[in-house]
């Protein structure tokens, strides 16, 4: 009996002691320290930070009051290059916060030790255990981007395969693109009326893919205007693009056998200010009354200012842009509009080069893959399998 009491009594006594000690420490004196403190090298960064994480002190006011007194108002992050200290205060953060990114003094990747100190309203503190050492290192591959790499490689492989096939002389069918068929009509009309053609490439810079597509289309348009001797006016917004446009138009005129008909004065820079450009192009339209106007490239809000003015002078207008916000305005105000991808397709189609046409086929395979992923993904999602949506969760 006594023996049994001893067996039970010791643990009970110890437990009682603990309860008294614990409640004493929570009712007055130190707050409970934060728990589960860890310090890790921040992944996928340039090697300029260490991330410190912890779980809030049970006494944190955001701690839902499990058994704490809920008066911890903040944490101090302490750092040292020696586990024995001294530790220096790096940063104070408010209560409820559980993560801190240290990006101070990381040059040369020194090793650091961390502690997180809970601070309560009365100024009492409690330190966590020390963690470390940790070094900030940089990585050579961003692991969060592996899916994007896979997608890019897969799509590129498809494109290259299609181009390779086209090289061997396989012909592809290409559906009709209404805006393209109108190009000849527009040029013909300008010739008949003896009025110029206006071509604008929008506001994109030379690195903009839409601008490059537009340059291809311009090259073809220029070849035809050269044949008909119709003046082709190209007011430019970007200085670098202007220089490229001159090369493209000049070589189109030589290709068409009419190098003499090319005049440098028809390709000119106006200004690199959006609305000043719009004001000046409006002026040109009103005064020169072009019979056909091309808007191909990347556009912003000036799209409708240009297209409405162009419409008021009675020109045939053919637009094409990848700026999805401007498409509604071109659709309403222009006669023909190349919608988004059609702009790139047009630039490929006009070239009539089999290799480039081949990549159009590749684009279609790309779309087919996207469609398949969408349908499969939807079915899987409904059944609670999130593989596909996880794949497409882009890393930041």
């Amino acid at each position, binding site marked *: 009996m006594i023996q049994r009491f001893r067996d039970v009594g010791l643990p009970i006594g110890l437990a009682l002691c603990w309860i008294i000690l614990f409640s004493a420490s929570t009712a007055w004196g130190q707050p409970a320290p934060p728990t589960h403190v860890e310090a890790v090298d921040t992944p996928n960064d340039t090697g300029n930070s260490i991330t410190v994480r912890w779980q809030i002190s049970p006494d944190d006011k*955001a701690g839902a009051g499990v058994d704490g007194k809920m008066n911890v*108002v*903040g944490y101090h992050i302490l750092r040292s290059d020696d586990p024995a200290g001294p530790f220096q205060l790096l940063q104070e*953060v*408010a*209560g*409820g*916060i559980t993560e801190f990114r240290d990006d101070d003094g990381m040059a040369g990747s020194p090793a650091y030790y961390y502690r997180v100190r809970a601070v309560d309203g009365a100024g009492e503190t409690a330190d966590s255990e020390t963690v470390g050492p940790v070094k900030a290192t940089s990585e050579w591959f961003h692991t969060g981007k592996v899916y994007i790499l896979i997608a890019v490689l897969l799509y590129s492989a498809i494109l290259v395969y299609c181009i390779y096939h086209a090289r061997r002389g396989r012909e592809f069918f290409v559906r009709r693109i209404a805006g393209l068929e109108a190009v000849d009509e527009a040029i013909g009309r300008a010739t008949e009326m003896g009025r110029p053609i206006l071509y604008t490439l929008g506001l994109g810079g030379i690195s903009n893919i839409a601008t490059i597509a537009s340059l291809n289309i311009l090259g073809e348009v220029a070849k035809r205007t050269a044949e008909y001797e119709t003046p082709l006016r190209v007011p430019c917004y970007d200085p670098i693009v202007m220089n490229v446009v001159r090369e493209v138009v000049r070589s189109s005129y030589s290709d068409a056998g009419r190098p003499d008909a090319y005049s440098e004065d028809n390709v000119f820079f106006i200004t690199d200010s959006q609305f000043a450009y719009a004001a000046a192009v409006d002026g040109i339209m009103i005064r020169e009354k072009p019979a056909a106007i091309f808007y191909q490239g990347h556009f912003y809000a000036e799209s409708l200012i240009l297209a409405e003015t162009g419409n*008021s002078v009675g020109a045939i207008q053919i637009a094409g842009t990848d700026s999805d916000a401007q498409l509604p305005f071109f659709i309403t105000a222009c006669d023909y509009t190349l919608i988004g991808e059609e702009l790139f397709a047009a630039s490929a189609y006009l070239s009539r080069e089999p290799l480039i046409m081949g990549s159009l086929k590749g684009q279609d395979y790309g779309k087919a893959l996207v469609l398949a992923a969408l349908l499969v993904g939807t079915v899987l999602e409904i059944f609670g399998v999130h593989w596909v949506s996880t794949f497409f969760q882009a890393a930041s």
Partner: protein
Amino acid sequence: MIEKLMSLDRRYVFALVGLAVIIPTLLMIRFPIYVSQPTQNIYDFIEGLSEGEVVMIAFDYGPSSLAELNPMAIAVLRHCFRKRLRVIGMTLWPVGATLGDTLMREVAHEFDTTEGEDYVYLGYRPGVTNVLLQMGEDISAVFAEDYSGTPISEHPMMADVKNYNDIALVVDLAAGASVEGAWIPYTYTGYKQKIAAGVTGVIVSQLYPYLQTGQLVGLMPGLLGAAEYEKLIEQPGKGTAGMSAQSIVHLLVIVLVIVGNVAYFTTRRREQNAEVY
């Protein structure tokens, strides 16, 4: 007549649009305004406060949304000053800093108010999360000085305003995600601080859910919200005028499109009939 409508010179359209904006601005035309419940809730809450209580206004927007949110800010500020409440201004947007300062001073000057006693403008501090959480403990820890550099301890009104406990309501005027991304998760969830919002028309619908769950006291939708509030405080301003202009232009375009289509179908039917006979 109908053929004329079909090929109406666009300058008539221009003239109508111009008049639709100028006349309401000039004559301060007031359309009947139906005050929606969420706006009414904000008004009722502020109306229910007693003299000397503190309202915090966050100017979380930039110049591009000024047309919609400034009228709202003016109306709410007028209501507060008229009720002799004390107002603290601040912003989470760096570009909102000057804008809020100018506006608060302008409205404060309309009333018999003293800076430091009736209002303080804190300005901007970087780090959204930290700013909001710190203010829950001690405002002076984040804003040791106000926007013009005066230590806030020198402002008499800040003597008894330490943190959210001393603030009756936060009104967030937002052009971005500051309501659902910052004030609700940190200030409401962390400190149970009452929050009301006034936002641009584009993002109103994103915030309806928070209204239903009671995380927001009230919500003012865009220029319309400003007009509603102006009606409640019985002092029409840019919101009322701008809303009339917006309404008239929208209805004008709708009517023009309908007229154009009626004309189109009438002429087409006439042409078809002509072909038959």
